[in-house]
Structure formats: C-alpha cells, structure tokens
C-alpha cells in the first residue's frame, strides 16, 4: 500500500530577506493517525527544512506555545489532528492580529504587557503570615472562578478577536478573563487596583461581544462571558449606592 502523504503550506518570512510573508509547500508522509500539525512541522524541521521557525514546548495542550492559524482558524497545533484535514492540504500561518517576527513566530510583547497590567496574582491588603494557616475556600467559592483559571495564555482568543484586530489598544479576552479569575477569588482583595485597567474605554467596554474568543479557546474558558459579566459588575458598582463598598 502506498504511503499516505499530506501537504503542509507553512508561512515563511525572513524580515532581512522578504518583503512580506509567503506560503511554502511541503509534502510529508502521514504515517500515523495520531499525527498532529505540530508533528508535521517537527518532521519538516528535522527532515526537510531546518530553517522553519515556530514555537512549541509541551506537545499536550498545556503550555500554550504552539498556537497558530490552521486553515484560517486559531488552534493549538499539538491538538489539531492531520486526519481531520487529510487529503486536503493544511495551511499553517502565524496567529492573526500579531506582528510576525519570523515564519510562524509572532511578537507577543503586547500581550505580555497587557497580561501584566491586570495584575494576575492574588493581592492582599495585608498578607496573612504563613504560620496562620491556609486561605480556606468552599467548593462554591472555587466554582466561581475555576473555569477562568484554566487559561494557558495561548493567545488564540486574541487571534480570533476582530475587535483586537481592528484596535490593538483593546485589553483583550485572555487578560480580562484572568482579571475576572482573580476578582472572583475569595482570597483576593485587588479589585480596586485592577478596575482602572479593566474598566477603561480600552478595557471591557471596547468589546462588542463577537464571542469568537470563547469558541476557539482550547481549554473551555469563556472570555466573552468574563467580559460581559465585568461590564455588568462595573456598571452596578457605579449605579448602585452600595456598589463601591469593598
């Protein structure tokens, strides 16, 4: 039986040589039904063209490094099976809405800056000494924020968000979902520090609820929900007389 093969068209871009990115085709063996797009890229890198650049790390949908556009949809390439596309060719491009550094590698500086701006860590007015024991939480308290804590910062939601594509000042889905994760955490007291960022005109109010961020999230996080709930909460804080209470 002849060996099954599949065509991968990958974006190539060397800023020192190329005026703009272009696609390069590679035909590679598709020898295992469990092969994913990342395996195909690794095959190209090791056996066909060692100059192809892309990010990856864990290969199991945890690290969030290998996000790329696969046939126009933001995907973790370690979770995009070749069998779902074969015999059609697969077009692999860098994530939409980000500057390209080289080939499939994007510049994530903007996202890192935004992520830091919402202070994604537990903020306490006064730290409780370690000797005083744990911050205990009930199951219901954990359920409040659990799904938002699954974010792996893969940035697929930014690539899917046309609002961010049109205005890169927008804080964006993942950063707001993480802000919500900490604001809903019963151990956290940092809401007032995050409000100026998330309540800004380039924060939650820039979002017009396209909802594609939640569709593409590989971890089942619902950033669109986080954004709309934050809109409602900040409005209530403003409107209701007791809204600004701690």
């Amino acid at each position: 039986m002849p060996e099954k093969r599949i065509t991968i068209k990958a974006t190539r871009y060397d800023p020192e040589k190329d005026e703009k990115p272009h696609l390069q085709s590679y035909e590679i063996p598709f020898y295992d039904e469990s092969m994913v797009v990342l395996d195909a890229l690794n095959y190209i890198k090791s056996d066909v063209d060692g100059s192809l650049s892309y990010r990856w790390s864990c290969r199991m949908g945890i690290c969030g490094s290998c996000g790329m556009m696969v046939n126009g949809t933001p995907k973790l390439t370690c979770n995009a099976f070749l069998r779902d596309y074969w015999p059609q060719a697969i077009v692999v491009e860098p994530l939409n809405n980000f500057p390209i550094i080289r080939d499939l590698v994007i510049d994530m500086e903007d996202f890192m800056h935004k992520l830091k701006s919402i202070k994604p860590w537990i903020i306490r007015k006064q730290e409780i000494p370690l000797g005083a024991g744990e911050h205990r939480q009930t199951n219901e308290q954990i359920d409040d924020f659990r799904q938002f804590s699954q974010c792996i910062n893969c940035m697929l939601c930014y690539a899917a968000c046309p609002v961010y594509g049109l205005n890169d000042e927008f804080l964006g889905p993942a950063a707001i979902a993480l802000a919500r994760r900490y604001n809903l955490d019963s151990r956290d007291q940092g809401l007032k520090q995050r409000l100026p960022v998330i309540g800004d005109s380039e924060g939650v109010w820039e979002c017009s609820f396209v909802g594609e961020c939640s569709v593409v999230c590989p971890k089942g996080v619902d950033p669109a929900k986080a954004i709309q709930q934050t809109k409602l909460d900040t409005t209530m804080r403003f409107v209701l007389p007791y809204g600004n209470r701690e």
Partner: protein
Amino acid sequence: MPAGWWTRKRHYFLYVVREFTALPLALWLLWLLVEIKRAGDGPARYSPHGSTAFVVFSVIVLLFALYHSVTFLSLTGVIIRVKLFDRPLPSGLISLAMFVLWAVASVVIGFVLIWFGR
C-alpha cells in the same frame, strides 16, 4: 485586518448582521419621533404615514428588531449571574425568564397603546 474579515466565518457574519440590525431600527425610531411631533399638532391635522414602501420597511425593521432581541436575550444567561442559596442559577433559566419578561412587557405595552389609542 482586511475589510472583508467578517465574511471569513459564519460566526463573524452573524455578529455583523446582529450589529447591523440596529441601524435600520434607529432610522425607524427617528421616523417615529417625527410622527410623534406631527401628532402633537392635534388629531384633526394628523394622518399617519402609510405608503406601501413605509409598510414594507416597517415589516423588515420588525424582523430585524426580533432578530436583535432574540440574540440579545439569548445571551443574557451568559452575562447575568444570580445566586440562590449560594448556588448560581442555570443560564438557560435566566434567559427563559428574560424571554417571559419580554413577552409580558410586549403584551402590556400593546394593551396600553391599543386601549388609550381608541
């Protein structure tokens, strides 16, 4: 972003349709304000604008309004968090409550308009 970004995916297209429906709705409401101003001159001098084109436009706007309302109310379950006995209510129940409120409000407003318009 290319100008045709919203044609790339069905989800984007439906989003743009949802947003677009607000535009003719706004135009129709502006026209309603004009009609109210005209009606202010008294019933004797008022005749409602009833051309076929306007009736067709109104029917289209009604369909847009229904589409906009249904998509908006369907999303309320995602947005609104209500806890009962420390447990969040299911989002489907919240959306259903919104649809019921919408229906009740429509009946009440319809009744008031018909009753006082006689």
